[in-house]
């Protein structure tokens, strides 16, 4: 069955069996292997992708159900090849990953959260990643990573008074 999918801003088409999950189609047909196959029955969250900017488990969706949506995988977050998004970088900075298997799902869940708010409470973060299982970190550093990313994005989004170039930077610490 031929399907047309919008993946990371690009329209791509492929031939899939109707029974093929979106997860398998992403990994096998489009070679986007950043999306992980974990439990494959909707428990672990490793296969999380964004469908119209909201996190969804790609193992619980058939590829043929995904036409017409904007699909974002972990490959679609970085601003340019070789670069990292703010959230990806925050996971590196705070050691928010060890084996890395859950990381793409975690980062996409965090990405969706920070699209809604840049001032999440700890509870908001816990709720946002509650559907994703990590067996390495104990979650502490992951929560820290999301808090760190939120703080950086807040600063990046704050309007600061324009300073005269010649003046010494008095208020910078």
């Amino acid at each position: 069955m031929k399907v047309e999918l919008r993946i990371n801003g690009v329209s791509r088409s492929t031939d899939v069996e109707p029974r093929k999950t979106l997860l398998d189609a992403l990994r096998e047909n489009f070679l986007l292997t950043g999306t992980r196959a974990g439990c494959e029955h909707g428990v672990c969250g490793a296969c999380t992708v964004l469908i119209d900017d909201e996190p969804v488990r790609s193992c619980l969706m058939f590829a043929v159900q995904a036409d017409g949506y904007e699909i974002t995988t972990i490959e679609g977050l970085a601003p340019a090849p070789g670069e990292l998004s703010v959230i990806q970088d925050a996971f590196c900075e705070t050691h928010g990953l060890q084996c890395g298997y859950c990381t793409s799902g975690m980062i996409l869940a965090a990405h969706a959260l920070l699209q809604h708010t840049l001032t999440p409470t700890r509870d908001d973060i816990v709720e946002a990643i509650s559907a994703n299982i990590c067996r390495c970190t104990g979650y502490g550093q992951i929560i820290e990573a999301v808090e760190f990313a939120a703080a950086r994005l807040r600063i990046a989004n704050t309007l600061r008074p324009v300073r005269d170039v010649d003046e010494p930077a008095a208020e910078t610490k």
Partner: protein
Amino acid sequence: MLAGDEDARLIAGGQTLVPMLAMRLARPARLIDILRLPELAGIREERGAVVVGATTRQAQAERDSVIRALVPMLARALPWVGHPPTRNRGTIGGSIANADPSAEIPLVAITLGAEIMLATKSGSRSMPADDFFVGAMQTAIDQGECVSAIRFPVWPHQRLGVGFLEISARRSDFAFVAVAAQVALDEDGCCIDVALGLGGVGERPLRLKVSSLVGIKLDAASVSEAVNRALAEVEATSDLHASAAYRRRVAVTLCTRALEQARADASDKSREGLR
């Protein structure tokens, strides 16, 4: 199509059916995707009720301003349903049709006395939630029928409060016990109407009889007495996860707390509307 093929199954959000397919617990010959049928989606206000289309996403209902204002119990229960990613796909009607004994949406439907609307081969029919839920994962739906919408009654009272609590092994896991409460108070804080529902304890959600609370102030002693009396006739199930005795103890505590939560919620409502 559904009526003509015994091995066909409907799929909407797929958050229960697809795991069952993955584990080979269900092997339908054909899946019929109803998620994008426009006539099954949407939330609309009717006289005295809010009608929620079967394929309305749980996440969408959770954020909906009509549901928040008019069916606050559903809005309060939805964050307990699964996780954000499963709520983004999972539907209100899917949870109703699945009839898991510990599920939150069937509990709300039973507690409020919702009407389940079905699309049939020849047209439509509807029945009270109380008749719809037969047992664990069992409903009164016939072969070839489909849940089309759920009609939640709206309480007209100004001072309306809700409570929702549950106990499970992990956040958002299947509830051992779930409790939903709704209370309406008059100007003096006396109870005008009350509904209390219990999930996870039996084969299906139950509405408990607490009508003795109507007409009095909901003080701790009378709430506790009414809850204990109502729960005396409830049979609790025992399984791997929790014993019947444990479920019963938790049920008493959660019922009491949920009623208190609902009372406090109603008391907080400004009296401006009344004067």
